[in-house]
């Protein structure tokens, strides 16, 4: 199917009644996903958002429930009522779309099912768009993805210049496309153009990380000297993880209303890069320095994720590379890790 560029508004108008319509907009010089009220705001000509779209389903501050008191005791707990609302995440990138897979795995792992996230995920429709020009820091192809990866979406768009090629991926997506009867049919030339764009985009990704053995190497090199080197200039800020589409750590706090007998429990993003993250009440901190904290981040994504979910905990979006204040480049770190093994193999041989 073909969506003309000037039909985006029409699409919005048709779906925004039923769905909370989230789309990329330009805000303070950066791209952010916002629930929009005016389709003019939508900005699809962009690389990627500053903060990944995970914030739509897993916001930085999220009220888990509210409670009421009679001044002395809690008398009533009010659960979230908005979880049944339907969402459209419009115009997200394949890498970020993949991140929802990882997030889902995390929130559904083990006995505890995080209903809030899962319900929202269930009620969300992903309309993604291929990356015609990936950034130099992108490396999705190293993680079994690519700039036109459609598997994780419900509907996939390709920017053909004047219009978008629309492809229904899931049943959910196809249902929607059926409703949009006014969409025109795609021609063979359109499909071909899309394939060309896909090829061109893939070629633009020059970063190739060999992650085949990384998990194994990491498992056997917990105490390696390399961690000191890798963390040497790390400042311990949370930029990399706050902007990471796959980071899920959160903290839980309670707040009281200022003038009323009520309060709420909120979860807020946290990161393993903060020293407070693992600080025990006793004062003991098992990850007492940047060395352990940097290591944890790498291990979590490239060792624990593969072990637990059989997936790499990274989508190759490159945000952490762009944003690190001291330019502690993930690509460099991975290649350093891969290097250890080679050296040791040499020794062993």
């Amino acid at each position, binding site marked *: 199917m073909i969506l003309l560029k000037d039909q985006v508004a029409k699409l919005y108008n048709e779906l925004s009644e039923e769905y909370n319509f989230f789309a990329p907009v330009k805000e303070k010089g950066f791209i952010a996903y916002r629930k929009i009220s005016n389709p003019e705001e939508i900005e699809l000509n962009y690389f990627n958002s500053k903060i990944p779209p995970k914030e739509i389903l897993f916001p930085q501050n999220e009220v888990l429930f509210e409670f009421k*008191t009679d001044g002395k005791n809690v008398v009533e707990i009010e659960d979230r009522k908005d979880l049944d609302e339907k969402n459209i995440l419009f115009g997200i990138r394949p890498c970020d779309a993949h991140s929802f897979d990882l997030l889902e795995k995390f929130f559904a792992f083990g006995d505890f099912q995080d209903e809030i996230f899962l319900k929202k995920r269930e009620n969300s429709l992903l309309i993604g768009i291929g990356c015609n020009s990936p950034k130099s820091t992108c490396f999705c192809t190293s993680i079994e993805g690519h700039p036109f990866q459609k598997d994780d979406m419900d509907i996939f768009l390709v920017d053909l210049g004047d219009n978008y090629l629309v492809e229904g991926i899931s049943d959910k997506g196809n249902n929607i496309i059926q409703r949009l009867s006014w969409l025109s049919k795609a021609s063979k030339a359109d499909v071909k153009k899309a394939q060309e764009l896909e090829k061109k985009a893939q070629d633009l990704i020059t970063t190739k990380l060999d992650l085949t053995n990384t998990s194994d190497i990491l498992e056997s090199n917990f105490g390696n000297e390399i961690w000191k080197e890798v963390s040497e200039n790390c400042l311990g800020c949370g930029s990399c993880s706050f902007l990471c589409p796959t980071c899920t750590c959160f903290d839980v706090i309670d707040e*009281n209303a*200022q*003038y*009323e*007998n009520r309060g709420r429990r909120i979860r807020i993003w946290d990161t393993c890069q903060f020293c407070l993250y693992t600080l025990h009440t006793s004062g003991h901190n098992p990850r007492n320095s940047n060395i352990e904290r940097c290591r944890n981040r790498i291990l979590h994504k490239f060792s624990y994720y593969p072990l637990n979910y059989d997936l790499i905990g990274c989508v190759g979006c490159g945000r952490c590379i762009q944003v690190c204040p001291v330019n502690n480049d993930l690509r460099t770190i991975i290649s350093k890790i891969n290097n250890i093994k080679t050296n040791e193999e040499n020794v062993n041989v």
Partner: protein
Amino acid sequence: MEKIGAVMVVGAGIGGSQAALDLADSGYKVYLIESTTSIGGVMAQLDKTFPTNDCAMCIVSPKLVETGRHQNIDLSINCEIQDVIGEAGNFTIKVLKKSLYINPEKCTGCGVCGRECPVEAIDVFNEGLANYAATSVKYPQAVPLVFAIDKNYCIGCGICQGVCKAKAIEYDRKDEEVEINVGAIILAPGFDEYIPPEGNLYGYGKYKNVVTSIEFERILSASGPYAGRVLRPSDGDVPEKVAFLQCVGSRDYTGKGKPYCSSVCCMYTAKEAVIAHEHMHQIQPTIFSMDIRAYGKDFDKYIIRAQEEYEVRYIRSRISSITEVPETKDLRIKYETEDGTVVEEDYHMVVLAVGLNPPNDAQFLAEKFGVELNEYDFAMTDIFNPVQTSKPGIFACGAFSSPKDIPDTVTQASAAAGCVNQLLHEKKGTLITEKTLPPEIFVRGQPPRIGVFICYCGINIGGFLDVPEVTKYASNLPNVVLADNNLYTCSADTQTLIKDTIKEYHLNRVVVASCTPRTHEPLFQETIREAGLNRYLFQMANIRDQCSWVHMNEWDKATEKAKDLVRMAVNKARNIEAIERIKLPVTQKTLIVGGGISGMVAALNFATQGYETFLIEKQKELGGFARHIYNTLEGGNVQEFISDLIEKINSNKLIRVFTQAEIEIIDGYIGNFKTTVIHGSKKEKTEFEHGVVIVATGAKEYQPTEYLYGQNNKVILQSEFEKLLNTSNDINDKKSVVMIQCVGSRNDDHPYCSKMCCAEAIKNALLAKQKNPNVEVVVLFRDIRTYGFKEKYYREAREKGVIFINYEENEPPEIISEGSILKIKLKTLKMGEITIESDLLVLSAGIIAKREDNEELAKMLKVPLNDDNFFLEAHVKLRPVDFATEGVFVAGLAHCPKTIEDSISQANAAVARACTILSKDEIEVEGKIGEIDMARCTGCGMCIDNCAYNAIELIDDRRFGRVAYINSILCKGCGACAGNCRCAAIDIRGFTGEQIFAMITGRN
């Protein structure tokens, strides 16, 4: 006869209160007897005090509250002494406690009776400038806060009896006579001010706009008749031109006033002029004075500031009469300027700087106690020990023995206490009582169970806001187990109720919503402690003084405010914890640095009391500065006094003297110092421990470079002249001796008065005249500062023909050496330029601090120096011998220039202050102090710089590295450290971040 471990202090002004506190803190039972109905004396009437312009009430009221509450002080007001028998060590005094017609046990000081009293009577406290009721308390912050009925005005209408819900009014209450048995007596009745008699030439009493200085003081006061605005009594206008006349009733040989100098008027006048200008900038003060007697520490700087910053004009002239301009009620003053012209000026208001008289009942007291008075009716005291009266066992302090200012009074009060210590030490601790209290209930970790007691305070609270509503509100707050209200929460029966309630409801926090914690917190704390709760598990909400009384016409809003205040108190109470006060052992030994008169007097006092004492002297021999002095102006034989002291020191086994000694290290803090001394010609090293330190390092004589000193052998110093007079007859062949005053004093390098040079000059002039009546003695002076009774000798000198000529600072005499004579050229205002020929020029060299020595010692002891490198006491007015660093005291010239008698007083005072520590086996430290969370502290050191008490230092902790450490002994809990700490590593117990957070927030 057996000695008694109790002391009577007569007079509860600042002096009496200080003496009582020092003794009570040292383990003596004190009976404090006051003739009026509240304590605080004159100081409580003052607005500000010189030279710091401190608010008098701010600094004195905590002291008064402490006095009123001290467990070892038995305070009786409205008393009269009936009879005294006995002798040093055992006196029996009959005291008449006159009825207040109000039962002090029941009176809560709420003041309703005073407000309802229909008879407007005169308010003594405001010096007749405001009206007050017959039922009254002396002033709002009075201690004890008990009302009294003035029967002279009372018409017996019974209204007060009707309104008093505490049933405290007892019209038929009788006087009571008691007999008190004590070992020593301190007389501190203070003074009465000179009141110009009827028909005086100043028109006082006749012209409305002529007021005395003490009346003016009340006008200045924020709590005075015009609420701090300076207005003239005739029409309430702002007086732009105010004249202050000095020496009203002082330095007066006409018989109308007193011949002596009242010592304090020059300074208090300067202060009043400054404050008047500060309160209202349009006021331009003019001060008419003879000499400006700014002889005390930092006084001269104050005078200079008054002139330069506050536009105070000084005119050297004595005014004897004033006329009123009838139309304007302005006052006309005629005076002669120094060059002889006569000027007439009009002023809007005139303030008479009235002198200090002996107390009106001086004769009566002298008779009852059997002490002698001097020629002016002040208490006669020992020539070297100014607190020792003519009768052993009876001491005098403050203005009773001579006119003096507050710090001198406080010093003398402590000195008297020091002498009592010496007399009664073996009976210390025998008569004081200690309460037995139940063991504390352990409440830590238990959920708060709060009891709230809300007070009606008669109608004081209940009449202006809805107490039942507030009670209901309180009962619904989280963790509140019980909320109740009481007619008077402070009454004795309510205390029992509170105790019972705590037990019945297992309360572990108590909140009282009533009056101010400043007066009542200790009472309630005591109550809950008696019920087994730690006294810090208490919180107060001030819904009277800061709510019902200030919103008397806003029932709803006052009720709402009271609810908020109660909620805030409950919120805090939820977060309060028991605080255990740390106790520390005290090493009952003392270190005295400096073996001059102050050091030796202190050492002997300590040793007499049985304290082992280490006396350190830098020189080879003891004696210090006074070794160069032969006699005092009053005739005391100094040399004899010193050798007597040295002999006593050397023969006392408890005193260990180190000569040629220097301190290497002083470590530690109050009660627990450790010092290493290097001493003797062989530089031996000795280390010892001690509990207190007295700094008595003295000062030195200025070595002039001016006036040809050192170049011409006819130019000598006053000390050298004294030696010449006392050891030779060289004076007999001298024709003319010229003395120059203020050499090395009151100039840019040493901007202070050396205090003793005037007396020294006059003493030596008199001796010279006595030995050789033909010798001409000329004294060139800037101001003659023979304060107090020394004025007599100034007059005597003039009578004996000593010539006094005034010179100005910027035109000093010029010395020309011509063969065997010296020519002294001088510009005078009245005579033009004159030349005096002389065969001996005597320079009155000032006293200067031993700068290097002082700096080194100050650093070791962590105590400050002032700009002139003398040691700086903790508080200029009320803590004259203490340092901010506890356990360290100062005496003698190290503090500032002073006379031998003053040094001795200070030494004894320092001993008394030290005894408040040494008398205890262990000291208990303040509970509400700072504590450091080492895990948070980064050791940046900001708190160290912010701490006024040197209580914080950096330590290397095994786990946390370099972190700050608060010495809980030294900490006073002000929180200046915690206020600045970025890491919030410091918290103040009782005012923790969490507690204050709870008060700010949680408005649900």
